């Protein structure tokens, strides 16, 4: 073999460092990991820890300042209060309702896109669904405010029928608007999940005597379940934490409103203690979702 005229190695420090790194893969890995782990670990998880710690601190009765003295008072206050219990249950109920509504709305259009529409129509529909995902969250809430408010479009449509418009107070408004806001987050994973099902599988089911209904229940549904769960992470979590929609389109209090108000004006320990509700729910939700394989469908 002829000798390869290799580029003479640059004696530069960078090159020597590269060679050294190449030989020390653990160091290479640690260097890669350092920044992201520090960021998420310190900035994010650290902040969460500080917040959760605050839930166990006391508030000075005179100054209203937070004092680093262990107490369970905030939790007792929350659990003992009828109001906070109602708000928590209302928020969770709303998250469930919005998630179910979005699954029901998303499934037909996702199914149509994935398995019925022609290639061209599919691309168009995909764009049509993606577009509002990028349009501003507040713009969408505002659009509904404009439609729902007195003398708005809905009033104008309903008055001739002798029905009063909903105005901006009904809880149901929040349900409609939240379902509207998070719908694309449900359509896209379900669509991707349905698209991944190979046709041969459905044909096999039909060949084995499965009718359309049975094939749907026993082949399609189990296979898109992870996708549905993935979508529901968004619909559920986004609803649990929203504090803008409930006050913008209705006069309702959600968990987010209590946290928000207490963080700025009221007691931080109370807000922190209340934060446990969505955090515990979402972590449990995520752990179940991961077991169901939803993370691959995110």
């Amino acid at each position: 073999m002829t000798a390869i005229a290799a580029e003479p190695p640059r004696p530069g420090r960078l090159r020597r460092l590269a060679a050294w790194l190449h030989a020390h893969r653990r160091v290479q890995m640690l260097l890669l990991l350092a920044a992201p782990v520090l960021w998420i670990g310190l900035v994010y998880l650290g902040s969460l820890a500080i917040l959760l710690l605050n839930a166990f601190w006391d508030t000075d009765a005179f100054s209203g300042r937070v004092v680093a003295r262990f107490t369970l008072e905030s939790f007792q206050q929350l659990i003992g209060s009828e109001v906070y219990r109602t708000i928590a249950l209302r928020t969770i109920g709303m998250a469930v309702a919005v998630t179910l509504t979005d699954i029901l709305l998303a499934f037909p259009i996702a199914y149509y896109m994935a398995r019925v529409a022609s290639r061209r129509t599919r691309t168009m529909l995909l764009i049509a669904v993606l577009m509002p995902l990028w349009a501003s969250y507040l713009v969408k809430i505002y659009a509904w405010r404009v439609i729902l408010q007195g003398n708005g479009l809905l009033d104008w449509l309903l008055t001739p029928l002798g029905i009063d418009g909903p105005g901006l107070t009904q809880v149901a408004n929040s349900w409609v608007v939240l379902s509207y806001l998070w719908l694309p987050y449900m359509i896209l994973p379900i669509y991707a999940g349905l698209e991944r099902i190979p046709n041969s599988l459905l044909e096999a089911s039909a060949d084995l005597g499965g009718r359309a209904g049975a094939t749907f229940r026993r082949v399609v549904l189990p296979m898109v379940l992870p996708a549905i769960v993935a979508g529901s992470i968004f619909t559920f979590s986004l609803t649990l934490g929203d504090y803008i929609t409930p006050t913008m389109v209705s006069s309702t209090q959600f968990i987010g409103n209590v946290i928000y108000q207490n963080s700025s004006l009221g007691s931080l320990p109370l807000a922190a203690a209340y934060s446990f509700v969505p955090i515990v729910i979402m972590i449990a939700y995520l752990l179940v979702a991961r077991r169901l394989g939803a993370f691959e469908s995110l």
Partner: protein
Amino acid sequence: MTESRWVRIGLRIMTAVTLAFIYVPLLVLAIYAFNPSRSQVWPPSGFSLHWFAEAATNGRVLGAFGTSILAALGATGVALVLGTLAALAVSRYAFFGREAISFALVLPIALPGVVTGIALAATFKTIGVDFGLQTVIVGHATFCVVIAYNNVIARLRRMPRSTEEASADLGADTWQTFRRITLPTMGTALLSGGLLAFALSFDEVIVTNFTAGPSTETIPLWILSAIQRPNELPVVNVVAVVLILLSVIPVWLAQRISGGETASVSR
């Protein structure tokens, strides 16, 4: 499964209904933007471009736009760097706690924004950080990292290791291989991840509200306060329409990048 005729007709109708549900509210807003009157009564009283001119010269709106762009650029930059580093580490090395990393990265978008917001605000206050653009960027970057990470790791998993090995065999050092092989392979993944991160940050209001402080105003923060002032509503209409139109750009770009490949929420 070949869907029966009736199933297909039913699906078509439901698809049309859902699309109408998605687009009617946005259309209504677009119509209001051309309404000459200050009041928001339906139907609008005529046609006018007056409020577009008004919005274009509104210093507060323009300033908020600038702030939003700066915040989104900053957050996207941080997110791309951190997300890429994490993706490289997770896809290339086996180590203790690898599973935990992807879980920790998902947490900021999986936990409600109000929790992230209040946690960051409490921490900034505790350690005495000044609120402003920099705190907004930190907040946004935190939940954007996972977007970049997901995009890059999906690409790295599909990329054969052999090209990198070939590069090393041919005498390239770690940097050269990264610059000439790994980085170009990740190119479009970084672009689409960056695009999504930018859009998420540009639109974010829940965390921003906690981390901005009184002197920093992004476009969503401006809308949030202007919605509650009836006088400003005509300008809000215009800004809303502009934002809806602007959202065509990332969708168009994403479509070009992926070449019609299916786009999922975070990838």
